[in-house]
């Protein structure tokens, strides 16, 4: 404990008192036509005092605490660190093993919904939507290094594109999936143009603004979007024209259960939506995996690493940034379309800033640029709050805590990104076969 620690402790406490007294110490209570300020009840004041004491002591003894935490960590055999690395190394050495594992996991994911409860399948579908959003934002934030706080705007564009195209033009889910993706990409493109001159914090603030503009536009353009009432009765996706409702909504359509001659069950619809989301996620994973190993993916990362060096090598900074923005937005568009179809009802309320924050948290938590990390984080971020329903009020607080612990524990994310290992042509024997099977290199 030294003077610096003491100063830190004092400053932290003062900041805490100021923030806490405004946020938690006083309350506005309606009083006739006006508002009155009342003080919080003694229990809360007591709790705040305890928090203050803890904070003060922690700051004061910060270095001994963190150093003992370090020794504690070093003493632990921490399997996680070694485990993912070991698994990845195994996958590298035995491509067959990797393929086999993927096949097993896939089979498990496909069979699982038929045995799981309806609620958990529904939750898994939601998690898959977030996986898709996380993967899309990962392109922009994790790979290209552009902090985008308005990603939810493109999600909204996708959802509303489907809802409106269906309502006004009667287009079905499958054609809208493509169109909405393109519309969202287009929005990403035109919004990207003016903002991509900015860097870092400025970019973050402007994208935040764009996200809000889109939401407010949807909220106020009542004649088209229905404003706060949203749009309801958005049709569910069909399987080659087969509907999953009890009776066909559209003339000439046959419900799924009649076609196969089985009894109607609302469970089929839930399972179908889950499987559809799974397919979308797999396609997303595949596309992004390819992109990563393509010139464009490498350019994104290079731009994140050093944009000055990029330019000096003849790469067009704006074009590369714009491509990341556009492609990232397209995935949000796909996710949005699926979301609208699954919910059957959308309103601007589903696309608030908090959604952007959650998606960003998924990317950071999982590990910037890491695909598997994002998948894992998306599952954690959607399933955990469901499991801990009673703490719903403290959800944001828990996210915050989680983030703080992540920064201490695994600053690079749950599963940090791993660089692809590219085999050089190392001898002539391989080079002659290279033309026949060059895929090995990728």
């Amino acid at each position, binding site marked *: 404990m030294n003077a610096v620690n003491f100063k830190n402790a004092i400053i932290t406490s003062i900041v805490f008192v100021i923030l806490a007294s405004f946020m938690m110490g006083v309350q506005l209570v309606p009083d006739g036509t006006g508002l009155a300020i009342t003080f919080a009840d003694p229990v809360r004041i007591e709790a705040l005092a305890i928090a203050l004491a803890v904070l003060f002591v922690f700051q004061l003894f910060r270095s001994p605490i963190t150093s003992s935490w370090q020794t504690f960590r070093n003493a632990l055999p921490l399997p996680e660190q070694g485990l993912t690395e070991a698994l990845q190394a195994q996958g590298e050495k035995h491509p067959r093993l990797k393929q086999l594992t993927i096949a097993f996991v896939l089979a498990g994911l496909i069979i699982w919904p038929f045995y799981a409860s309806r609620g958990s399948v529904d939750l898994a579908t939601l998690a898959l939507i977030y996986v898709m959003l996380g993967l899309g934002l990962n392109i922009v934030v994790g790979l290209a290094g552009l902090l985008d706080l308005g990603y939810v705007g493109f999600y909204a564009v996708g959802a509303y594109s489907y809802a409106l195209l269906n309502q006004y033009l009667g287009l079905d889910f499958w054609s809208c999936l493509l169109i909405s993706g393109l519309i969202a990409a287009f929005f990403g493109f035109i919004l990207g143009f003016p903002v991509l001159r900015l860097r870092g914090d400025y970019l973050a603030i402007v994208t935040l603004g764009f996200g809000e503009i889109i939401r407010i536009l949807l909220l106020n353009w009542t004649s088209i979007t229905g404003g706060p009432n949203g749009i309801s009765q958005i049709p569910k996706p069909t399987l080659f024209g087969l509907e999953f409702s009890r009776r066909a909504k559209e003339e000439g359509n046959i419900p799924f259960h009649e076609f196969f001659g089985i009894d109607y069950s609302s469970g089929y619809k839930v399972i179908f939506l889950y499987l559809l989301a799974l397919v979308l996620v797999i396609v997303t994973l595949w*596309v992004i995996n390819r*992109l990563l190993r393509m010139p*464009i993916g490498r350019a994104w990362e*290079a731009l994140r*690493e050093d944009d000055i060096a990029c330019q*000096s*090598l*003849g790469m067009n900074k704006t074009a590369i940034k714009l491509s990341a923005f556009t492609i990232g937005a397209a995935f949000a568009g796909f996710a949005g379309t699926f979301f609208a179809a699954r919910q059957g009802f959308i309103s601007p309320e589903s696309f608030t800033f908090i959604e952007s924050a959650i998606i960003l948290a998924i990317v950071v938590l999982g590990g910037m640029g890491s695909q598997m990390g994002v998948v894992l984080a998306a599952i954690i971020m959607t399933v955990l709050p469901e499991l801990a329903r009673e703490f719903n009020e403290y959800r944001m607080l828990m996210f915050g805590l989680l983030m703080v612990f992540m920064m201490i524990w695994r600053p690079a994310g749950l599963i940090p990104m791993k660089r692809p290992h590219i085999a050089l*042509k190392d001898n002539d024997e391989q080079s002659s076969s290279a033309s026949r099977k060059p895929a090995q290199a990728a």
Partner: protein
Amino acid sequence: MSKAHPLHANQPRPLEGVLDMSSQNKKQNLLEVDDLTMRFGGLIAVNKVKLNVEKGQIVSIIGPNGAGKTTVFNCLTGFYKPSDGRIRYRGENITGSKNHEISLKGIVRTFQHVRLFKSMTVLENLLVAQHRHLNTNLLSGLFKTPAYRRSEREALDCAAYWLDKVNLTEMANRDAGNLAYGQQRRLEIARCMVTRPDMLMLDEPAAGLNPQETKELDELICDLRDHHDVSVMLIEHDMKLVMEISDHIYVINQGTPLADGTPEQIKNNPDVIKAYLGEA
């Protein structure tokens, strides 16, 4: 691997003049700079600098720290927009062109402080640099069309060739940020070379290298000029290196041109001696 790489041998070069160098040597001005001036507010960092680089030459810029050498490079490569003056590259006016446009024309540079893509592997650094030579079509990349595979293969071959050249083959799949300093310097030069430039600008490439590494660098630079068709512009403080390899030397002092000539002339120029001794 001593033979020139096929990719480089086949490359069409508008100004092919290696064979009849003797007759054209004097006339082929690759880069002509006139009255280049760069002001930062009140500070005149570069004042009416005149430069001339002929094809196949190694031209050095020397001068004390803060003389404005790096600023000249920044102006030539489009990082700064010159306040005044003209830059002509192969007779074409490139004054004020954008950074990446200039490098697409074949002028690439290294930096005084190494700028690698640190968390990418050595090999990836070299692949990124070949961006414009690659098949960047999204669909052909997604579905790995034969044309796409061929272009990736070529990029890998080219990277392998240069890795071998700068002795980094072993490090191909290491993160660039983990290399030793001398290796990072070499990688930066290799990264320039895979873009297949006509003009290479090196900003203090020997800074921080040990004598052995400096000697290798000397050989590498000469090899680049002799066998890879690049002209080199060099900023360097290592006088031994500069005097050994330069065809022509420009001396800048406080932004103003002080002298220029062959290494012999510069060595014996009283102004230069004074400027350097005055500094030390």
